[in-house]
């Protein structure tokens, strides 16, 4: 049995901020951070234009100066895209939306940097171990269990089988990111859910290397909305020049979409084929790819971020400014609040939760989330309404409307059944050679570096395989289109699951219209190997 004072599950910005901050405020106990990726940052992905507010609270001036980013935002624009060739800049951008001077770069690299600081200060960071279960005693979370390794596909132990290990902890901090499995299980078991179910967007992203550096382009950023999705769908894209020779291009699609034919990767390709984006990346070559979900439900979807013995920080607690789609700084602030609560209460399981909640409410990030509390709500009534509402929210700095607003459906409930011929029509559009010039899904999956031991139980468990046949008739197996990694495909009249392609984004467990996918943990260390995302 391993014993620690604080166990932090997940080495992203929230978890590492908790660890750094605990050591900074003089917490003498043992602090252990565990991540299921093969290295720190290998499962961390964001745009990322980072609001530096979080770093300022967490790091010293000297440490901020050494952040591994090559550019700061110096030119920014918002564009509405009408179609492949037409777009228009938005003339007025509220000051709160502006990001001038913000660092722009890879969150993977930033996570590695934060881990090095945490370790220097005396926290311990271990990677390659999946924490698969929380341990409870008398209703109090008292630690967690790691997943087994070396199981064969049929579940039998192989010659190199490694048993699960128990970690006893006074406080367990869940920093799993969006749609974390342990977090969601805890929220469900303890009734911590917010007033509205959490809603997500799936974001896909490529790092593109330009053929020739463009002097002075580093620090240019662009956000867009509109095409390639229609007005009934919530989605938008970004283009960030992270240096003079490299561009991050990404697209986020709201998972409360209704059209079963939507294909997230194809939307992404279509997006790159627009003139608005094309002028930033022409002649460039994609060298890395990744995908992740963003919790967009906003203030009313935030769960109560604590249970006895457990705290939830970062994306797992739904802490995201839904108007700016920024969460890194709030994740860091939540980590700082969790650390302060743990230190003040000497890691007392009974007292730490309420204290954390109080400290979290006092952060600026929390106030931001509250201010834009209804940005998501408008979109739950259809996008024209949502756009109008978002416009009003935009003009009122996110405040309008002032009451809780919008429907309360889960992302899995919004999809409409397929109309005859709809898939064929979508396929005809996808055959456009301008779109096919960009990497296809499997090429992108290769560039994510994702790797899973093939001889292990499939971590994407179908609750009832028969439901997939009903889904094929009603929705045409939308998992084959919303999965950004081609894990799901129809072959010889049945659904096949190539789990080794998985990017751990959890879109399938969120969007499957019959909620048929149970996400179990693959062997620790498996999954994407992001290094520059």
């Amino acid at each position: 049995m391993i014993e620690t004072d604080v166990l932090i599950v997940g080495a992203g910005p929230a978890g590492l901020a908790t660890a750094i901050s605990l050591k900074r405020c003089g917490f003498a106990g043992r602090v252990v951070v565990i991540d299921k990726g093969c290295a720190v940052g290998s499962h961390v992905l964001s745009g990322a234009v980072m609001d530096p507010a979080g770093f300022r609270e967490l790091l010293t001036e000297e440490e901020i100066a050494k952040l591994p980013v090559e550019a700061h935002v110096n030119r920014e624009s918002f564009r509405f895209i009408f179609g492949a060739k037409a777009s228009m800049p938005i003339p007025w951008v509220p000051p709160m939306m502006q990001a001038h001077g913000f660092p722009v770069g890879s969150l993977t690299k930033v996570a590695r940097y934060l881990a090095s600081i945490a370790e220097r200060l005396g926290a311990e960071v271990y990677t390659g171990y999946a924490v698969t279960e929380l341990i409870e005693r008398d209703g109090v979370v008292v630690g967690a269990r790691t997943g087994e390794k070396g199981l064969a596909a049929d579940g039998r132990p192989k010659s190199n089988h490694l048993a699960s290990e128990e970690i006893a902890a006074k406080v367990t901090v869940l920093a799993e990111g969006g749609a974390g499995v342990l977090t969601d299980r805890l929220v469900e078991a303890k009734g911590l859910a917010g007033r509205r179910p959490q809603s997500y967007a799936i974001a896909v992203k490529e790092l593109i290397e330009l053929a020739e550096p463009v002097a002075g382009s580093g620090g240019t950023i662009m956000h867009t909305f509109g095409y390639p999705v229609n007005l009934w769908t919530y989605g938008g894209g970004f283009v960030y020049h992270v240096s003079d020779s490299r561009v991050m291009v990404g697209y986020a699609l709201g998972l409360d979409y209704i059209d079963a034919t939507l294909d997230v990767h194809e939307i992404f390709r279509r997006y790159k084929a627009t003139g608005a984006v094309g002028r930033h990346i022409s002649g460039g070559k994609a060298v890395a790819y990744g995908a992740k979900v963003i919790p967009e439900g906003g203030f009313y979807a935030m769960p109560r971020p604590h249970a006895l013995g457990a705290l939830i920080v970062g994306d797992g607690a739904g802490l995201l400014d839904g108007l700016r789609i920024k969460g890194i700084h709030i994740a860091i602030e939540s980590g700082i609040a969790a650390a302060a609560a743990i230190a003040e209460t000497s890691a007392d399981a009974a007292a730490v939760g309420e204290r954390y909640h109080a400290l979290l409410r006092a952060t600026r990030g929390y106030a931001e989330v509250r201010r834009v509390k209804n940005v998501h709500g408008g979109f739950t009534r259809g996008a024209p309404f949502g756009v109008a509402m978002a416009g009003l929210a935009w003009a009122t700095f996110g405040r309008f409307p002032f009451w809780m607003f919008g429907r309360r459906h889960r992302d899995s409930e919004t999809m409409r059944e397929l109309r005859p011929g709809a898939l064929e029509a979508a396929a005809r559009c996808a055959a456009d050679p301008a779109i096919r010039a960009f990497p296809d899904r499997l090429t992108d999956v290769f560039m994510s570096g994702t790797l899973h031991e093939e001889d292990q139980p499939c971590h994407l468990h179908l609750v009832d395989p028969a439901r997939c046949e009903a889904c094929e008739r009603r929705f045409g197996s939308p998992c084959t289109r919303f999965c950004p990694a081609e894990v799901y495909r129809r072959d010889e009249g049945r659904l096949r699951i190539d789990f080794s392609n998985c990017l751990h984004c959890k879109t399938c467990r969120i969007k499957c219209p019959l909620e048929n996918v149970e996400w179990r943990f693959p062997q620790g260390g498996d999954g994407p190997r992001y290094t520059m995302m």
Partner: protein
Amino acid sequence: MTVVVCIKQVPDSTNVRIDPRTNTLMREGVESILNPFDAFALEQGLALKDALGVRLVAVSMGPPQAAAVLREALACGADEAFLVSSRAFGGADTLATSYTLSRAIRTACGGRPDLVLFGKQAIDGDTAQVGPGVSEFLDLPLVTYVKALSVTPDAAFRVTTSMDDGEHVIEGRLPAVMTVTKDAAPPRFAPLAGAMRAAKAKITVLDEKAIAADPIRIGLTGSPTKVVTIFPPPVKGGGRKIEWRGDAAALAHEIREAIHG
């Protein structure tokens, strides 16, 4: 009984790119990993530790960050770890490396070990020369391509090797040097508790003085071979497919056109 396993940190070759302008390896975004063959060698050492209670010593030569692979070995159950590291060793070819490692192994064990295990080759250089080289410098018998190994308490060994013509079964008596293939038993996983122990464990750094190396036999000076250039081979074109359409004369004409342009 003392068993030494020599391990190397290598770039994860699944992700290596070469800068087309400078022909140099682009290290950014490339993880460093334990050479996969060495993981199989380590497993053989750990199995001997389980069976006979041998003292298992891990040795790696490389820059300071190569300590990471030694911590992996310690996490899996190796007893001691030595990092052979000094600027003076830089630029060593396989001869100088074999010499340096053989000196380091003697220092680490305080004499000659009973068994030295290597992976068959490293995935970065792919030479497969250092294991055999060390066996020469230590003046020990060598068995390569080992896929299974058993040792009795009185130091008699029996190995199965994978060869082109099938499997060979070889019996002998330690001491010996062996290189292990990926047909051997799959490497074990380090338990978290082991990784925690390893994070705090001491790794002894051995430099040229500690191993009493002859200065003209190490590093660039001690290397008779030099890497002159590194370049990616030119990418082959896709070729052209000429299809049979039922007319031999037309096909012959097409082929002739393709050849003569």
